[in-house]
Each structure stands twice: as C-alpha cells, then as structure tokens.
C-alpha cells in the first residue's frame, strides 16, 4: 500500500465511529480487514475450519452488537481477537448445549478450487531448494503439533508468535499477566521442539 493509499484508508477508530453513527458499510470494511485473522486464530485454536468460520461469524455479530462497549475505538483489532479467542476456547462446551450447527459449506472453496491450490503449491515446492523444502515440511507438521498443545499454551503461542499480537495485548486477550503469557509461550515452544524433533 502506498503512502497516499494508506493516508486515504480510514483507521479502525474512524470505522468504529462511523459504525456507531449507523453506517453499516463501515463495519463491512472492518470485517474485510479482520476476517482472515479472526478465522486463522480460531482455526488454530479449534483445528477445524468449519467450526472456525462459525466462531468468526459469531464474533463479528457480537462485536457489532457490543461496539458501544468498546472504550478505545482504536483497539478494535485486539478487542475482536479477544472475542474470537474466548468463543473458540469455549466453543466445544457451548456447542454441547447450543442450537443446531450452522453450515458454512458455501464459504469453503469447492474440491476443484482446492485441488488447483494444491497443484500450485506442489509445483512451487518442486522448484525449491532442499532447505526450503524442509521448512515447508516443517510448516505442514506444525499444524498438527499445535493441536497437541494445552489450550492456554496454544492460544498464547498462536496469538503471539503466529499472529504477532504484542505481548501486552495477548495478556489482555487471555486475561493473564504478561509474565504468564511469556511462560506459556516458553512452554509451548519447548513442547513443539519435542514434537517436531524429527523435522528439525
């Protein structure tokens, strides 16, 4: 994004202000900005894309309804991720007593599109030097290793190391102290090292 384009792009704070003024199109812009990140965080916490999409939708609906409760409009992102994280961590418990599961098949690319994506990835990997190939394989194994981490460690690592949310924001999202976040991240790294020893 060029400097001019960046200057013309409204900030989160401005979009929140417009949404509060009744302009739903402003919230549409916020959805565009954060839906990938929200889905990504939820997906890594739940390990299931369908569940992650359901959580993502619910998080945005709750954010919209509770927008007046956001004290600092400029911190919409961390605030939204907090909603996503809480919904994800409580998802299985709430699902057990909740209503029928929503279908998000229409939001998941069909088999042909996914096959094309895999073909493109395979073509790319065949051109890669050995080191990159190893890194790629490591990345693949990483997903399953993440799923084996305890919930708090996984949440802290996903938010801090993958989504690169600042530690103090991670602490706020998870309702922990910064020291606790550091500890969980350390333990998660240590565990991943054990799980991925064969690929390192």
């Amino acid at each position, binding site marked *: 994004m060029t400097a001019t384009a960046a200057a013309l792009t409204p900030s989160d704070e401005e979009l929140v202000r417009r949404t509060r003024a009744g302009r739903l199109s402003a*919230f549409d812009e916020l959805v565009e900005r954060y*839906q990938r990140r929200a*889905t990504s965080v939820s997906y890594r916490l739940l390990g299931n894309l369908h569940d992650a999409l359901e959580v993502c939708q619910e998080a945005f609906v709750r954010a919209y309804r509770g927008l007046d409760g956001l004290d600092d409009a400029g911190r919409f992102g961390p605030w939204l991720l907090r909603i996503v994280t809480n919904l994800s961590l409580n998802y299985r418990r709430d699902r057990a007593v909740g209503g029928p599961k929503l279908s998000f098949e229409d939001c998941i690319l069909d088999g042909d599109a996914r096959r094309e*994506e895999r073909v493109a990835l395979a073509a790319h990997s065949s051109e890669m030097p050995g080191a990159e190939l190893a*890194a790629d394989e*490591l990345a693949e194994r990483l997903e399953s290793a993440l799923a084996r981490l305890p919930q708090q460690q996984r949440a802290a690592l996903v938010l801090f190391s993958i989504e690169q949310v600042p530690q103090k924001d991670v602490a706020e999202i998870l309702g922990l102290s910064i020291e606790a976040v*550091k500890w969980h991240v*350390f333990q998660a*790294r240590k565990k991943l090292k054990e799980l991925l020893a064969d690929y390192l």
Partner: protein
Amino acid sequence: MNRETFEQLVSQWLDNPADDHLRRRVEQAISDSPELLSDRRHAELIEQALHAARAKGPAGVDWRRLRSRIMSQLRHADAAPARDDARLDELLARPTRLEARIDWTRFQQRVSQRVAEAARMRVVTLRLRRVGAVAGMLATAAALVVVALLLRERPAAPEGFAQVRVVDASASAQPAPPSAFASVRVSRPAGGAVEPVRPAEPEFFLYIGPAGGVDASASAGVGETGA
C-alpha cells in the same frame, strides 16, 4: 549454563529479537557450551515456521462469501427486534383455536350466576359481621362491669368485738356445740394507711382446757391457747 536455563534465555530473546543484550547473552552461553548451538538453531527454525504460518492462513476459504454472509447476519440481527415485535403483535391478534371450542353464551351465563351468588354471600357475610361486632361490644362492656365489681375494695373489719366460739378440739369428737363463748377485741394499728385486711376467719378456735365451765364473759387474746 544448563539446557533449561538456556532455553528460557533463548525464549526471552525470541520474544524480543531486537534486544542486543539478550542476543549477546545467548552467544556468550553458546561460546561457553558449544552443544547449545543446536538448541538455538531448533528454536529459530520453529519460530520461523510459526511466523510463516501467519502468511499462509487457513486454506480453502471464500473470503468474499464469508464477508457477505457476516454482513447479512448483521442486517438480520439489526432488524430482528422490530420484526420480532411485529410478529408477536400479529400472533396475539390472531384468534386461537381455543375460541372456536367454547360456547361463549353459556359461559357468560355461568359467570353471571356465580357473580350473583358471590354478591349474595357477601351481603349475608356483612350482616353476620355486624351482629358479631355488636355482640362483642356488649360482652366486653359486661365483662368490664363484672371486673369492676370484683375489684371493688372490701371495707376493713370494724373495730370492736368478734364472737369467738370455743369448741372441744378432741380428735374423737365430732364438731360439738361450743361449750363456751368468748369475745376478742379487734383493733386497727394506730396511724398511717390501713393495710388491706384479710378476710376474717369464720371461727376462732381456742383450746381452753377440759370442759368444765368457763366464764363466757372472760376475754382472751387472739391466738392465745390455754393448757
């Protein structure tokens, strides 16, 4: 430096990769213990993989459709309260199936009868209550009169003489006609308020001695017994 401590140091450094002080400490630890080099390398590889995972994101999502769906849900949620009210009003206005099953004319007659009965019962009840109230007042008044009479102060025994009968107190004898009479002077203590007088005993019993003739005009003190 042991492996556990080194791993914590590396983790701190990975939290703040721009921190030169931490980087130098890591390098110093490796120079002291070269076997720790592989531990740092493994930690870096994992951290790079984690960073790269962000760029990948979950694959196979139609983001445009997801966004459209979310906004549709919001518009639906926005309109929901007003729509719910309208739906509720419509529901309330709709005649229920229950109405078709009731003979409303007969029902109205039954209700009217019950209301009339209730009205009559109410009149009777009111009358009984009035009678009861009057009877209660009369009974209260009568009780007050009786209590007043009972609590009236008894006059003290006048000064003077009380008749005393002397009887033979032997156990074998039935109460025998008195063999003598005596008089006992009753007097009040001098001055001050008079204490309430106990009702006098109906008879004073004085054992004077074997029956043999006693001068009836002789006076004796109260409680005095003879041999």
